């Protein structure tokens, strides 16, 4: 039979009632809280009991203190004198329990309890504001990408996942701050009448946000299954963050065991955090640059559906041909450069650059071609260029455009078939047969 259990319910710091009710439920299920930490709560098995719990704060306490201060121990003595046994703490958060059916509450003056919670909110407020700003910026960035750069948003797995995460966390931090301010206002009114008003925090919203983030992560990883190198880099980054957290926590614990004063512990832990973060990031960056120089990055690159040999009877030079691809669950983007040897290029042999966008989502192909159409002048700032419509039937396409500088045609084309968009740059003149071949090949992929 299991003797230990863990959970991590992200209660809002002002939801002391919620914390107490949760621990009472656990005790009734046969689990007694044993240890509280930032990484979760640990329980030990007990016979199911009806216990009363109380959560409160002793604001001067800190997670960096080597041991409880005299003041903290005196506070716990006071509570024990009333029948409240100390069971655990995490920084300033103190948890007590009693088996008395109708115990005297730890706080009997609502104004004093509010004063204590407001003290804690001053510590939480900078974090709240920073997280609100970060998540607001991230959400705005994600939405702006979705609106103004739908190609990047839908063809890369990162932007959509980022938007889901940032958006969910923005909702959580916004809701938590709003809930706290509204509750504090009402609680102050109730305190004037000598009444307590218990808070209900937003931990369910945070759990929902975390669930969305995990679901988004699962979809993100699914989209990377055929890009093992990118997956590897992702897991290396996760591992890096985990190691950093454990290392910093380890430094703090070590310094506590050495009875280092709290302020010195905080300063040294922060210093270790910065050093480790920079050091590990430098190592990661070096590793990624080494990878970029190696052949490993060619692993898993897409194969071009078009070839110069089929199109123009010219052999491609593998050293001057490359490809790049990325995709999400909704769309993909592949870039190809097909070049003959340098000698043949100098002799006027054609080469081909093209980007292929594919999607199964209705309407996205139109959004992609619309963005490429609008961006033509931005991609060629030195010339007055624009896409002009040409006969799509030559390509077997729904839409076809050619880039013109004034009346002068360029060898750049924008083509759309159902679920596929292609932007081609062909050095040479394309015959109707070549256009039909391109259309058959790309539309059928």
């Amino acid at each position, binding site marked *: 039979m299991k003797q230990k259990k863990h959970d991590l319910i992200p209660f809002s710091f002002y939801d002391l009632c919620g914390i107490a009710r949760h621990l009472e439920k656990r005790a009734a299920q046969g689990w007694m809280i044993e240890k509280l930490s930032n990484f979760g709560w640990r329980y030990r098995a007990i016979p199911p009991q009806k216990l009363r719990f109380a959560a*409160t704060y002793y604001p001067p306490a800190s997670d960096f203190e080597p041991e409880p201060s*005299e003041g903290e*121990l*005196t*506070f716990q*003595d*006071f*509570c024990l*004198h*009333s029948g*409240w046994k100390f069971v655990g703490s995490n920084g300033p958060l103190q948890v007590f329990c009693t088996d008395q059916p109708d115990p*005297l*509450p*730890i*706080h*009997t*003056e609502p*104004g*004093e*309890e509010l*004063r*204590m919670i407001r003290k804690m909110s001053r510590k939480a407020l900078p974090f709240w504001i920073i997280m609100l700003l970060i998540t607001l910026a991230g959400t705005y960035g994600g939405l702006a990408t979705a609106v103004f750069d739908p190609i990047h948003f839908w063809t890369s797995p990162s932007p959509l996942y980022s938007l889901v995460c940032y958006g969910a966390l923005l909702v959580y931090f916004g809701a938590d701050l709003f809930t706290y301010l509204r509750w504090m206002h009402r609680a102050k009114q109730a305190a004037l009448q*000598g009444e307590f008003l218990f808070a209900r925090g937003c931990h369910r919203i945070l759990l929902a946000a975390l669930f969305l983030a995990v679901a988004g992560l699962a979809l993100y990883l699914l989209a990377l299954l055929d890009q093992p190198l990118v997956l590897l880099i992702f897991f290396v980054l996760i591992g890096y963050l985990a190691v950093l957290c454990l290392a910093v926590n380890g430094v703090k614990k070590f310094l506590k065991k050495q009875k280092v004063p709290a302020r010195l512990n905080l300063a040294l832990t922060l210093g270790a955090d910065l050093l480790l973060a920079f050091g590990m990031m430098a190592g990661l960056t070096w590793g990624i640059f080494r990878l970029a120089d190696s052949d490993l990055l060619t692993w898993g690159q897409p194969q071009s559906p078009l070839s110069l040999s089929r199109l123009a009877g010219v052999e491609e030079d593998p050293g001057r041909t490359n490809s790049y691809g990325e995709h999400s669950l909704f769309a993909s983007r592949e870039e190809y450069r097909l070049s003959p040897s340098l000698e043949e290029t100098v002799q006027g042999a054609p080469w081909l650059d093209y980007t292929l966008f594919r999607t199964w989502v209705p309407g996205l192909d139109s959004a992609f071609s619309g963005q490429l159409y609008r961006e033509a002048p931005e991609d060629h700032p030195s010339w007055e260029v624009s896409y002009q419509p040409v006969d799509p039937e030559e390509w077997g396409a729904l839409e076809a455009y050619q880039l013109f500088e004034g009346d002068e045609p360029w060898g750049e084309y924008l083509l759309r078939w159902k679920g596929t968009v292609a932007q081609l740059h062909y050095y040479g003149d394309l015959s109707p047969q070549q256009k039909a071949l391109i259309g058959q090949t790309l539309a059928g992929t």
Partner: protein
Amino acid sequence: MPRAKFKTLTEQMFYILLCLSEEKCGMDIMEEIPARTGGRVQVGPGTLYNLLEQFVGAGLIRQTRAEGRRRSYILTQAGQAALKEEYDRLCRQAEDYRRFAPKEDAP
């Protein structure tokens, strides 16, 4: 305009200061107050601890001795004055009630 701290005392503040008219250990106040009020007023341990700290900070009480973590306190002159002022305020309220209460409720 916000009320100055301890300008008006709550019931629990009043009885804590009243108990400390004589030197007393902080924890013993938790039994003393219900005993003096017939159980009508009770002070929780967290509230008592916080108020004692605040009273010391405001100069209304002072620590007299410490035996380990058991600390004893007594009212200072400022504390006596604050207690007297609160008593006078309550008396004025009681007098106003006697003068203006509906006749059937008048003692």
